[in-house]
């Protein structure tokens, strides 16, 4: 859309719907024809049609549509929600694309709360021409109000997005609640939970919105107030049994309290109300496996794999989990087949899949008492680790180290655990967890020394960089932090300091395209490791303000402080 940013509200009736590209997705030919006629009455000429999710994906991959009218229920294959998710994840639609989800009746999915990919509106049949035009205009107008905010959000400049929200609230009182909801989300993303909570409470003063209640509860949970959070989520569910997000959060609260049985029961209820969510079935499977409910775990993982067939959200976790289930049922044969399949299907997007399936293989043998084959898997894992510098994520490292110790390998797990400490030297909970793994392997004292040495290594690297920076040797500091990042690639303090020093360099010596790109790389990397950090939001904002001609950024923003 080429419309100017601050279009006055009145212009809504003058939108040119005739010149847009439309896609209609419905499995019923009568409805497709009807919608096409309605669009033609609006003057539309470019109207494509698809009768299934698969056909829709083919068209979406080739053509950029301005408007998609998609039925939720598309018979066999992908449903409307899965088409939407895949189109968004694969970037097949523009942020300006209007996506209207059509259904025969009010769907559970429309009130789930925090589902990641929501259409712009849900429409209930029958859809007359007048209804269609009314809703198109409304969505278009709302998208105009959110356009710059969404753009800043996509650039992860959450603080700029929040300022734009404030300005929009003043100008568009009718959208105050939606804008406040966005603002709260932005505060959460910027590591400012207290400010997010203030926003939620401001909403609740007006009206009892369940998402605001759930928002407050999420913040209390993050703050360690598990019991209060649990009560709050339960009261949200009592108010609206279909607010599915509250179930997922309630299960998390139980998990944090160590009550896995309860978490499992809640996830099972949620999965019954809204069964077609890949992440939910995966979580249910994982928790069921932990509490030893093999039957429920199997059901959840199998369902997860079945819905994953049509979903961009499909996950290797379900295959690995199901392999564990098979192992516990003494069906090593199916387990190994699943592991072969997962390596074949997920190799492209998951570089650590060979390692993860080998870990699962070791666990399957170990749990079924085949210690000889478990040891063999352990040796192969050691060889895999020696062949590369890359290490998997922290939970996988810990799982791997535990397994390796259990099957009698020693050097590789020690190296892995030291790697984990170096990259997380200021996380006391994780240090305890690592110490426990050492203790279980009867290496308590040695482990304590190793932990201390690894911590010191990381601290020294960081302190030297900070010293260079504080004494004004910015060029040396930048170079030092590059070295430090090479030695400890996943330490968030080192990564944030590296970005901070790059920003300081540009603040003192002027903007530099390469340094700016480097800083963005570092920050986006750390945001993937550990989302929702305050320093991330602050540094991204400072970086954006350093850009020579940053469109949309306020001129002469605040000067970032060097701390």
């Amino acid at each position, binding site marked *: 859309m080429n419309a100017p940013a601050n279009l006055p509200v009145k212009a809504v009736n003058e939108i040119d719907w005739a010149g847009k590209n439309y896609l209609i997705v419905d499995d019923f030919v009568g409805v497709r024809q009807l919608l096409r006629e309605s669009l033609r009455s609006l003057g539309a000429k470019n109207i494509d049609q698809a009768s299934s999710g698969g056909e829709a994906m083919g068209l979406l991959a080739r053509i950029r549509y301005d408007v998609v009218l998609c039925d939720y229920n598309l018979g066999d294959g992908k449903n409307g929600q899965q088409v939407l998710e895949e189109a968004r994840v694969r970037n097949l639609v523009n942020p300006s694309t209007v996506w209207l989800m059509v259904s*025969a009746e*009010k769907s559970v999915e429309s009130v789930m709360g925090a589902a990641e990919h929501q259409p712009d509106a849900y429409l209930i049949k*029958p859809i*007359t021409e*007048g209804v269609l035009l*009314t809703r198109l205009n409304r969505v278009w107008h709302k998208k105009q109000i959110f356009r710059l905010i969404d753009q800043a959000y996509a650039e992860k400049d959450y603080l700029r997005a929040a300022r734009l929200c404030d300005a929009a609230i003043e100008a568009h009182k009718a959208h105050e609640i939606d804008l406040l909801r966005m603002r709260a989300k932005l505060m959460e993303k910027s590591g400012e939970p207290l400010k997010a909570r203030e926003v939620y409470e401001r909403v609740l003063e007006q*009206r*009892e919105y369940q998402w605001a209640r759930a928002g407050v509860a999420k913040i209390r949970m993050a703050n360690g107030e598990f019991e209060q959070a649990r009560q709050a989520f339960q009261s949200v569910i*009592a108010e*609206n049994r279909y607010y599915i997000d509250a179930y997922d959060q309630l299960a998390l609260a139980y998990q944090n309290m160590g009550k896995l049985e309860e978490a499992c029961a809640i996830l099972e209820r949620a999965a019954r109300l809204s069964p077609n969510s890949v992440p939910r079935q995966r979580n249910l499977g994982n928790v069921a496996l932990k509490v030893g409910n093999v039957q429920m775990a199997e059901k959840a993982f199998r369902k997860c794999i079945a819905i994953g067939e049509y979903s961009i959200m499909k996950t290797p976790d379900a295959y690995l989990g199901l392999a564990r289930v098979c192992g516990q049922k003494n069906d090593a044969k199916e387990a190994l087949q699943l592991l072969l399949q997962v390596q074949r299907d997920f190799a492209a997007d998951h570089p650590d899949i060979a390692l993860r399936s080998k870990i699962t293989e070791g666990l399957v043998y170990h749990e079924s008492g085949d210690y000889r084959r478990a040891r063999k898997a352990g040796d192969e894992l050691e060889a895999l680790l020696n062949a590369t510098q890359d290490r998997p994520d922290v939970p996988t490292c810990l799982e791997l180290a535990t397994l390796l110790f259990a099957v009698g390998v020693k050097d590789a797990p020690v190296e892995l655990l030291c790697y984990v400490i170096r990259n997380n030297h200021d996380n006391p909970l994780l240090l305890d967890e690592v110490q426990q793994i050492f203790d279980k392997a009867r290496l308590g004292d040695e482990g304590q020394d190793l932990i201390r040495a690894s911590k010191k290594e990381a601290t020294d690297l960081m302190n030297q960089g900070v010293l260079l920076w504080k004494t004004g040797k910015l060029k040396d500091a930048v170079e030092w932090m590059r070295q430090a990042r090479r030695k400890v690639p996943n330490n968030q303090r080192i990564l944030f300091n590296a970005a901070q020093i790059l920003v300081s360099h540009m603040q003192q010596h002027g903007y530099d395209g390469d340094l700016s790109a480097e800083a963005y790389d570092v920050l986006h990397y750390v945001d993937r490791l550990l989302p929702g950090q305050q320093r991330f939001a602050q540094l991204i904002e400072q970086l954006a303000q350093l850009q020579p001609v940053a469109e949309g950024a306020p001129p002469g923003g605040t000067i970032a402080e060097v701390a």
Partner: protein
Amino acid sequence: MDDTPDAPELSLFLASTAHDMKNSISVLSGTLERLLVAHSAQASPQTDPEYTQMAHMLYQTKRLNDNLMQLLALYKQVGTPAYPFDVQPLELGQLVDQVVALESVLLKSRGIKLELDYDPELVWHVDEDLIVGVLSHAINNAIHYTCDTVRLAIRATDDGWLELRVEDNGPGYPPALLKAGAIATRDTAGGMNFLTNSAGLGLYFSSEVAKMHRHRERRGGLRLENGGRYGGGCFILNLP
């Protein structure tokens, strides 16, 4: 309903059948609206018997849709936490636009004037789909009983309620319906005995929808009376 072992199959079956019926109704009402609009371009369509018959078909199709929507919603237990109730802030302008978009062809085909009286910028917190359903149902009813005018008037009262009135200039509700309305919309259950026809279903549904809307200690309500600006039937929804 999902707590009994065989419920999922039944609800899946109902959902897919409802989906199918809605498709058929969509095509029926869409086609009729199109034909009516095409006919209305001709001179004095109201005297054309084909035109008036089609207008009546559209009215019946709307009734069918209303009843189906109400039954489905009640099956999903409107009035209990089991219904996917979804309150959102909504400008009255957008609410009224929806209702007008649904009703305009039918109104025109029957030669009935819809009078509107509301502040388009006033924001209220409602489940849009349910309220649009209730209002268009009320207007469909009024179309049947009115002489030539239906009035939709919405205003915020001094004590913080939203009052939505659908009035007409027909002869008004018969006493039996007023009585049924009073019972169907009472707070306590028990009105079900009087629900022997679809008028009862519509009233019961509308009053359940009203009651679902809560704010602090207040709940919405429905009442029927005769009078209003034109002395006909008045369907009055009050939302907190």
